[in-house]
């Protein structure tokens, strides 16, 4: 049974406009449709100029994080029945808008790269077999391997809004994933790098990141684990 939904979308084309404006659209969707489906209805049947990123449409590619009714969400994992029939959609906060809901994520990717998010392990060569890792060791970093780099956490963080030099929770999550991986041999260097005001010590434990994560990662806890490892002098 289709229902009428009103979408208020913050529109902005910096190539043509000096400031954003609100576009209002009436679309018909099902209660069990995703907000992404409603956005597609707008682009496909009402206004083809509406720009938003999307790909997998089921919450694993991380393309369609945006602010929906005031909260950071993935448009493809939020159903109409869970958000109501008056829906306000805005781009992620803290990034420059490239067009409508498409934001400039280059700074986000640079922050990610700054934590050297790759396994660093020498030639403790186990021969032609895999390195051993116990289920317990594997479990220690399980949560932070779930990250899909959607930026919902980083753009919900009040420290990130106020201080563009703060590396942000997503980058720390991805550092955590290696710090607590028993195979990684760069723990000391990683902790030394993060032991700074604009790295983990920028975090004021607001928990916005944990609330925003569409993957249910305990982001704040991960950051706390990194802080404790620094204090303990791990590595």
């Amino acid at each position, binding site marked *: 049974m289709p229902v009428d939904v009103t979408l208020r979308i913050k529109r902005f084309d910096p190539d043509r406009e000096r400031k954003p404006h609100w576009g209002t659209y009436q679309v018909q969707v099902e209660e069990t449709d995703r907000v992404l489906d409603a956005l597609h209805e707008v682009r496909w049947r009402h206004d083809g100029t509406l720009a938003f990123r999307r790909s*997998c449409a089921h919450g694993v590619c991380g393309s369609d994080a945006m602010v929906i009714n005031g909260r950071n969400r993935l448009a493809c994992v939020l159903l109409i029945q869970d958000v109501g029939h008056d829906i306000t959609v805005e781009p992620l906060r803290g990034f420059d808008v*490239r067009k409508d809901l*498409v934001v400039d994520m280059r700074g986000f990717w640079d922050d990610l790269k700054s934590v050297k998010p790759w396994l660093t392990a020498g030639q403790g060569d186990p021969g032609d077999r*895999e390195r051993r890792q*116990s289920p317990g*060791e594997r479990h220690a970093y399980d949560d932070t*391997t779930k990250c899909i780099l959607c930026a919902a956490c980083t753009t919900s963080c009040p420290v990130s809004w106020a201080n563009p030099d703060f590396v942000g929770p997503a980058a720390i999550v991805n550092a955590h994933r290696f710090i607590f991986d028993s195979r990684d041999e760069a723990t000391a260097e990683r902790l030394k790098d993060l032991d700074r005001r604009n790295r983990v010590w920028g975090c004021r434990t607001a928990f916005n990141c944990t609330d925003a994560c569409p993957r249910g990662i305990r982001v704040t806890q991960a950051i706390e684990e990194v802080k404790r490892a620094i204090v303990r002098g791990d590595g």
Partner: protein
Amino acid sequence: MPGSSVTVHHHAYDAVIVGAGGAGLRAAIEVAGKCRAVVISKLHPTRSHTGAAQGGMCAALANVEEDSWEWHAFDTVKGGDYLVDQPAAEIMCREAVDAVIELERFGLPFNRTALGRIDQRRFGGHTRNHGEAPVKRACYAADRTGLMILQTLYQQCLARGVDFHDEFQVLDIAFGAGGEVTGLVAYEQATGDVHVYSCRAALFATGGFGRIFKVSSNAHTLTGDGPALLLRRGVPLQDMEFFQFHPTGIYKLGILLSEAARGEGGILRNADGERFMERYAPTVKDLAPRDMISRAMVTEMRAGRGAGPKQDYLHLDLTHLPPEQIDEKLPDITDFVRTYLGIEPKTALIPVQPTAHYAMGGIPTNVEAEVVRDAVGTVVPGLYAAGECACVSVHGANRLGTNSLLDIVVFGRRGGARMAGYVAAGGAGTGAAAGPAAGGGIEADTVAAIERLKGSTGAEKVADLRDALQAEMTDKAGVFRTEDSLAAAQATIGGLRDRYDHICIDDKGGNYNYDLTEALEMGFLLDLAECLVVAARARTESRGGHTRDDFAARDDAGWLKHTLVHRRHGGRLELDYKPVVLGRYEPKERKY
């Protein structure tokens, strides 16, 4: 171009990799530091659909129980209904072991056994000793194995300083007088500018094209841009009639629920609660290959044993599994069920239906990932393809679960290595060495197509055409096909082609003009859908993922051969065939 509103940029590289999923990234790791290379991708690499793969990657590590790569190769050949080129399957299954070990070295967080080895689980069609019983062969990371492969390969690319051009969409390719690759043309989404890449070599890793169907597990962006543009420039496409329907898509949405759910013990049931796969595959039951299970599901629904008021779905039953096993081994897919169906899979049955999942066909290659242009294997100099967009053929008429993640890693590596060698040897002596001028004019058709779309005053909408195509393909070129259904689909596609000439887009701008890129993608979808239907009409037998109600038997005498679709002048499609490369396994009746 004088008077054009489109800005054109020029680049010179030795090698260009198109696509940044698993195959493209693995190829990029292989060429890193060996030549001037760039990866262009219409998505940021971590958005690629490799990340949606769930269940695992098979390799005969024998960590949990006895196994051998020969058994894996046999299963792959039999699973592909003997249309597999057997030497290619043997290479893939033999190299699988090293490929998994290498991914572990790269940092992939595999699940582990109590002894700290990579854990393994059962998957459809993978058996012990030539079909005796299911075998634990799939290496996995919970039910996000693809996401972990994608991220691990991306991490290794970052470590190597690989050059990426993100959100650049390839639209055309140019060949020199000797048929060698000389350049590519890409569209930059952020600006609307066109980029010409002069290059000696190009590797296509653009993924699948499941968006020709309505109910599909594929991302919106999987529109087959790579194979379609090559088809337009004279490269044939192979075995396009073979498309895999995965048995367990979420009802109506098509979102994938991994075969790992059945590998962990899940059961398919019809409306009567019966475990119907016992009748169709008595030995391996719910772990039969996907083509057999999807056929069985549709057969059950046709017989009135489907569930729901329209009898148009079946049930996946996980309720007998220990809750902690579900949480540990299948967390993501059970979350999908909660999110999209609003039901708790630990206590309720999950409505599922077959979903268009994987193209066995694609750009024809040899085992070095070199693209071949004819039935005798003539190589296109400098052109490579790997992953779902390619057809080696290791999957034959039906791919086994987990073999796609294996394919991308093994043939991405092989393609990257071969391409780096080709460039080091001087290539065909043109391309980047000649500098940007070598690309002079190759962007003309792309610029004209963009300007035509922006200037069009027609009345047709891309979304209407796409809806019509997808519904027709799911209805008439799906799990079961007939001459009548395929002829109707072909006529529909013809009508949509006429309408496509009159599409109009709202967005005339440059930056992030998805109205334009979706219109271009619609053209690719039409081309690929037509190839599928034409090849399927011609193949008057049933084999693997291609099932004809009117030709229900496999016909080895007439059809143990690969299809090649060529696009001739005026867009006319022409078919020819090449032999399957057999090996140690004689084609036999396929029973499980």
